[in-house]
């Protein structure tokens, strides 16, 4: 298990247990929290952490920046943690922790499977590349096996 996978399992573990999400590694710096009808992609690179809500739509996966959505539409005002001169590992861990706390606070309905929020005008999905889609599909299959489905 690499350090980025460990960070996600440590910081998102509680949230995944509460909302019945299965954690699967997609690739380097890319993890998936897989639910029944959606999944969250956690992207970690040197710029930081971002969380994408991914849902299958007309044979392709659509990805929506969930952090952007809850900041713009649900009143998430992050920033209670001062930015310090820290290493990348510490920063990724802190950002993952912040996401895990605030997604449960501001996006509880989304984590429970609600999809009405996607009808909002401001929601702008992006497509995933073919390579990413294949990796996501493989992760979904692995999660089904781990659930015994």
């Amino acid at each position, binding site marked *: 298990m690499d350090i980025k996978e460990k960070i996600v399992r440590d910081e998102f573990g509680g949230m995944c247990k509460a909302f019945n999400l299965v954690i699967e590694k997609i*690739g*380097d*710096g*890319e993890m998936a929290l897989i639910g029944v009808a959606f999944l969250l992609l956690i*992207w970690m*690179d*040197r*710029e*930081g*952490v*971002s969380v994408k809500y991914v849902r299958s739509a007309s044979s392709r996966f659509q990805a929506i*920046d969930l*952090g*952007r959505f809850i*900041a713009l539409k649900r009143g998430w*005002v*992050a*920033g*209670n*943690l*001062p*930015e310090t*001169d820290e290493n*990348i590992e510490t*920063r990724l861990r*802190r*950002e993952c922790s*912040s*996401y895990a706390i*605030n997604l449960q606070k501001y996006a509880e309905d989304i984590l429970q499977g609600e999809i009405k929020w996607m009808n909002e005008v401001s929601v*702008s999905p*992006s*497509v*995933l*590349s*073919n*390579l*990413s889609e294949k990796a996501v599909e493989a992760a979904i299959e692995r999660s089904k096996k781990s659930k015994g489905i």
Partner: protein
Amino acid sequence: MRTIFQWLRWVCLLLLGLAWTTTPSFAAVGALNQANGGVTIRYDATQTQNRGYDAEPSRAWDNNPPEMVDASAFFGSPAQFLAANNVARLNYVPTSGAVLEGQAGRTSTILGSYQMDMKHIVSEMGNVKSLDFGAKPGGFNVLNVPDNLYKSPAQFWSQYNQPWLAGAVQRGDNVIFATTPKMDVFTRINPSTGKFELSGFGKEYLFLRQNGMGSKLSY
């Protein structure tokens, strides 16, 4: 005597020329009226155009393109054609839908979101870490410096990202967007500050626009 023959020669040539320009094509001439035992030569007005003088020549080239139009006819495959011209091509299909193909004699700089596209691109290119920011005629210019050189977003931009992109602007590179430029990928929320900040891709796009590349960007 010689002068007379020369005059006769000129007259014959003139007559031949007149005959050519005024005679309908052979297709216009048909044999008719053979009932009375003779042959009447008919002149078919619908076939009078001599192909040599058509206002709209037959577009045989367009309708029947020769094999040489297809590069693969000579090189076996487009990839061989590109290789013969020292032009690089990647198989990865980016989310923008752009074709990742170089231009002969010119460097192609590829920009995009790391997670959405660039990680797949540098992977296909062998993930070679390099500080070579020079021209790569026919090839691709991507930013993939050793990871340990990254300390902070500001430091990385000023020391590596901006100089790399400035070189591309100075050369007048062909810029390919692997990710469709839009606000969602230009910014990210910083959970520490609570503010939206420019992503690396966002900074690169802004830099190009501020440095006169705006009109040359197509996506």
